[in-house]
């Protein structure tokens, strides 16, 4: 695992999460922003999705910083991304700065089709989720994998934020989600 992908805790760190509705994109981003806030960071979450529940474009950007944020709610460029699906990802990729860290969900996202100046790490989130006994928690595998490299928040903080955000009728998923976050971090 390359340490150079980690946030050094200064300035502002952006991550754009992109995929299709149903992959858990919005929950992934919200969990990250919530965890950063409870760690005392300044966070911003700008969500962008259509009316479709499944299959439509789903995108969210999270910015985290140690001081009040200057970032725009529509990011002109970004230093990292989580790509959960190849569909709708072109606009995200074209705004990444050279050297940006990309966590790509292979094989749905083929790294050979991404820009050569990006630092890409692939995770087969579906396979990892299934092995962890959490087949519905693909988004949390990606979040665990992303955060293990970017080190935005403590792993425990992610688990706590995920648990807090679960509505009462979804509490039974907490265990599987935690397994997914941990399996992602180890992947």
């Amino acid at each position: 695992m390359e340490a150079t992908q980690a946030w050094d805790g200064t300035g502002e760190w952006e991550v754009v999460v992109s995929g299709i509705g149903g992959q858990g994109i919005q929950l992934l981003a919200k969990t990250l922003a919530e965890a950063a806030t409870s760690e005392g960071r300044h966070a911003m979450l700008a969500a962008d999705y259509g009316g479709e529940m499944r299959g439509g474009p789903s995108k969210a950007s999270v910015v985290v910083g140690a001081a009040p944020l200057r970032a725009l709610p529509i990011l002109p460029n970004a230093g990292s991304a989580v790509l959960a699906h190849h569909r709708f990802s072109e606009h995200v990729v074209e705004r990444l700065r050279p050297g940006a860290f990309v966590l790509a969900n292979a094989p749905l996202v083929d790294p050979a089709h991404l820009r050569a100046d990006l630092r890409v790490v692939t995770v087969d989130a579906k396979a990892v989720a299934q092995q962890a006994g959490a087949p519905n928690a693909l988004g949390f595998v990606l979040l665990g994998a992303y955060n293990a490299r970017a080190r935005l928040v403590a792993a425990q903080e992610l688990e706590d934020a995920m648990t807090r955000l679960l509505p009462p009728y979804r509490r039974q998923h907490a265990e599987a989600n935690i397994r997914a976050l941990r399996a992602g971090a180890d992947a």
Partner: protein
Amino acid sequence: MTLQLLEGGAAIAEAAIAAGCRFFAGYPMSPFTGLLEEMSRRLPAAGGVCLNAESEIEGVNMTLGAAAAGARAATGSCGQGIALMQEAIAEAALNETPFVVFNLARNQQDYFQATRGGGWGDYRTITLAPKDVPEAVEHTQLLFHLADRHRAPVVLYGDPLLAQTRVGVDVSPRDFGPLPPKDWVLDGTGGGTGRSRQVWTWAMGKATDPGPGPDGHWRAIAAKFDRIAELEARHEQAHVDDAETVVVAFGSAAKFVEHVVAELRADGHRIGWFRPVTLWPFPGAALEAATKGARNVLVFELNAGQMLDDVRLHAADRRAVRFIGGVSIAESGLSYGPLLDAPVIRERILEATV
């Protein structure tokens, strides 16, 4: 300081409750709905009342009633719904009933609505246009103070980015200093004494206790808004001292302009920005001073050119003023189109300054 990650509409609702708002009535309309939902969740527990009104007209009139009875009260919608409320806002301005109107608009096409009165009579509404969610939290609390300070309805003019972006905010109460006592409120304490009070747009008074009547009253109201114009204009600016180009923008758009101007400065351009924080009163004297040496005064707003009028009225040289904004609406009609984007704004500024 504890930060809470809140969607903008919810952050505004929490800030309003922290400011003492105890009555809210409105009708759902995107992107305002989140504010109404948060109010309905949180206001009862704070000892307040939140009503989903039959329409915007009922909502604003209930708010007027609650405010006349002495409550800190508010209503809201997006520009389309605020259009329906104009009669009540005019009445409140003329009969001096203070409340807050939240326009969480779909775009920046409501500048005229917010700054030109909108109903009938000689009045304006103090209008604050925050550039982001943390500032909206500040402005919300300030607006309740300004409403009470001047006994007038006031407006917060936001947009979808403000309403729907989640940001870590501090919603603890702010202190803006003492206010005049609300000795005019219709709280029933004068009932049966022969000294019951009135809040009346026409100020005719009672047979036994005549008021100044419409002429005297409306002159006094007009003079009050002249005083507010002197007192309450607010603005921010940067890099204007040696600027050949000054870009003027408000609300979220101003945050984008600030970002682009900082980039262009770093590239060696002599460029600055000016942001009216209050749209009314428009900070005209400050704009005149900020544009003294500028060859280009560029106006960026997401409409066909509305604040443009105020910039032309106040820029040091009216001939330097040029419009680089425009109408840009998402396919849904509920948010901005592609014009509100830093690279696009940068292009427009560069094209206008060659």
